[in-house]
């Protein structure tokens, strides 16, 4: 499998794993958050509605009390008493002892003329005949005004009741301290930024809100028509988000507006949101890190496996190639050897005949003899090739003995002492002293090592080093023999073919191209393996691994 394919696999695994873990996580987070959010929203809205309801009851109660107090006053005193400014003054003073709600009191006759007045303002001569509220009270008998400026030039509200006595209608009127009313409305705020105020049907403010000017838009939607109970909505103005609650009073055509800062109210929600995002974020981070780690592990495992697989395949291909070529070699050897034997005998017969006197006398005797010599020489050469081929093909059972591999190598190298000296090649020995003995075939191992030494010497030519290292391979627990030369090395093309039979880089007649294939099959039969590394310009290193015990 190519590296690209593995990367692709890694991406696929990562995407799948991330998809299957992140999507549920995010869905869970979003669902939980939105459910919590909507629950919390409705809870907050219910709170505000309850608050608005309570407050409305309070305000209604207040207004009802003021009206009934005024009515009690009107009916418990005669018009005569009330007409006297002194009596009126007494009544107001008495009332103000307990509550300063009423600022002034006034009695007005049918013509709208102030009959008597008690209070801080000079309104004795005021005539209300043309005032709206005057007409209203005459019709409805009880009247609570909007806040207006009236004769005094500053906002106030009045309540008025009528009384019939001596066939005439009288009006008792009181002014309510708007500060007290304001504070009543504002009483019990929800949060730091909460607000409460009253507006009339026209949308005019009836009490002073806690904070500045109110935009009409905040409560405009509540003004359309009366409704029972509280209505809550969310209002957004620039960066300010608020809950707005509206409820109509029962006693008066006024709308109670309650504002609550959303941020204050929703603080726990925002905390939850932050926590949700935090947990989700770290969850996502952990999942991504975990996925990447697992993906990398899987990919590298896969890479290892496919590398091993490729190596195994290569070895398999190599050994089946060997087997096929072995059979072929055996067949060819037989077919070639018979004619070679005939040629040899014929040449031999010619040589026998050359011994005859008459032939010896021939002027071409020398030519004949040379030709016969050459024929025999080349039959010999061809015969050698075929015999080596047969050696390669032969299925010889190895003879196993206990061997000290270092001794085997040393003995083998001794064959080449002269050659090595002649070529000025230095042998570097790095033999591990405490190697276990192995059960193997000494002569076959010698054949392989001799072959590798020969190749190394041929590769170096003159002046170089051959390093021989033995040891125990840590991974496979096999004995290792490493033969390294500092010759010219091999290029990739040569590297791919060196174990192929009849492949040689040597001159015609010098190498058969069978050495390494035979070595390969010998080492395989002994249960070991042979591999090499080579770099052009640096040299070549062959490693033989042999099992300590020969497998049966």
């Amino acid at each position, binding site marked *: 499998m190519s590296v690209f394919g593995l990367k692709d696999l890694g991406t696929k695994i990562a995407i799948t794993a991330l998809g299957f873990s992140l999507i549920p996580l995010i869905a869970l987070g979003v669902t939980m958050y939105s459910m919590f959010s909507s629950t919390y929203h409705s809870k907050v809205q219910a709170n505000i509605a309850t608050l608005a309801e309570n407050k409305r009851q309070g305000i209604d109660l207040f207004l009802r009390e003021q009206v009934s107090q005024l009515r009690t006053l009107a009916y418990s005193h005669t018009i005569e008493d009330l007409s006297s400014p002194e009596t009126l003054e007494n009544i107001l003073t008495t009332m103000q002892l307990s509550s300063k709600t009423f600022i002034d009191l006034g009695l007005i006759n049918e013509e709208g003329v102030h009959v008597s007045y008690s209070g801080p303002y000079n309104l004795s001569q005021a005539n209300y005949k043309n005032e709206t509220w005057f007409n209203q009270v005459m019709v409805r008998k009880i009247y609570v005004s909007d806040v207006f400026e009236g004769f005094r030039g500053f906002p106030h509200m009045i309540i008025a009741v009528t009384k019939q006595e001596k066939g005439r209608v009288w009006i008792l009127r009181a002014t309510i301290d708007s500060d007290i009313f304001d504070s009543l409305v504002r009483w019990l705020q929800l949060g730091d930024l909460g607000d409460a105020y009253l507006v009339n049907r026209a949308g005019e403010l009836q009490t002073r809100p806690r904070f500045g000017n109110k935009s009409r838009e905040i409560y405009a939607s509540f003004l359309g028509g009366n409704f029972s109970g509280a209505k809550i909505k969310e209002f957004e103005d620039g960066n300010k988000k608020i809950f707005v609650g509206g409820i109509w009073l029962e006693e008066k055509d006024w709308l109670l507006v309650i504002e609550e800062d959303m941020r204050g109210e929703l603080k726990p929600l925002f905390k939850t949101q932050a926590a949700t995002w935090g947990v989700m974020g770290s969850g996502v981070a952990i999942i991504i890190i975990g996925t990447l780690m697992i993906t990398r592990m899987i990919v590298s495992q896969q890479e290892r496996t496919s590398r091993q697989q490729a190596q195994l395949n290569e070895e398999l291909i190599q050994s089946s190639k060997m087997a096929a070529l072995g059979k072929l070699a*055996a067949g060819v*050897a*037989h*077919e*070639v*050897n*018979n004619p*070679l*034997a*005939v*040629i*040899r*005998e*014929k040449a*031999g*017969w010619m040589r*026998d005949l050359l*011994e005859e006197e008459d032939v010896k006398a021939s002027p071409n005797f020398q030519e004949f003899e040379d030709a016969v010599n050459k024929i025999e020489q080349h*039959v010999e050469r061809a*015969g050698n090739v*075929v*015999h080596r081929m*047969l*050696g390669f*093909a*032969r*299925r*010889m059972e190895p003879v196993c003995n206990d061997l000290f591999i270092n001794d085997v190598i040393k003995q083998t190298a001794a064959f080449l002492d002269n050659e090595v000296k002649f070529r000025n090649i230095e042998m570097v020995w790095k033999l591990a002293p405490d190697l276990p003995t192995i059960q193997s075939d000494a002569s076959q191992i010698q054949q392989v090592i001799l072959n590798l030494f020969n190749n190394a010497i041929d590769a170096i030519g003159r002046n170089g080093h051959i390093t021989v290292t033995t040891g125990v391979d840590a991974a496979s627990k096999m004995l290792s023999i490493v033969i390294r030369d500092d010759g010219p090395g091999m290029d990739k093309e040569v590297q791919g073919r060196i174990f192929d039979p009849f492949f040689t880089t040597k001159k015609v007649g010098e190498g058969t191209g069978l050495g390494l294939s035979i070595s390969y099959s010998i080492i395989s039969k002994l249960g070991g393996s042979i591999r090499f590394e080579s770099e052009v310009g640096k040299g070549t290193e062959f490693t033989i691994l042999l099992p300590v015990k020969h497998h049966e």
Partner: protein
Amino acid sequence: MSEKNGVQIVPVHAGPRVLVVDDEQDFVETLVKRLERRGFEVSGVGSGQEALLLLGKERFDVVILDVMMPGMDGIETLREIKLGWPKTQVILLSGHGGEEMGMRGMAYGAYSYLLKPVSLKIVVETAYMAFEESGLR
């Protein structure tokens, strides 16, 4: 056949009687001529059956026998020879370098096993040794 030529001259009466068996006619022909030149009494045949037939008529000390032959192969022929003429020594000759074949041959009582192409010198030496062996029995 003169001594000057350096060819080994063997007295005819002591000369080993050799039978060459090979399906390769050219080989048999040449080997027969060359062995005769070296003092052997030699006959040549092209198959195992012919060899057994001839053995029935004449005495041979040594049989040089090709292993791979059509029809009756070398090993079969060897067994027949060893059954009928135990004193006759058999040298197996093969172009097929099967060690196993050689082993089998030796197990059935062959005197030696030679690989083609083999030099005549070795054939002659081996034949002499085999001849001496046959004399001892």
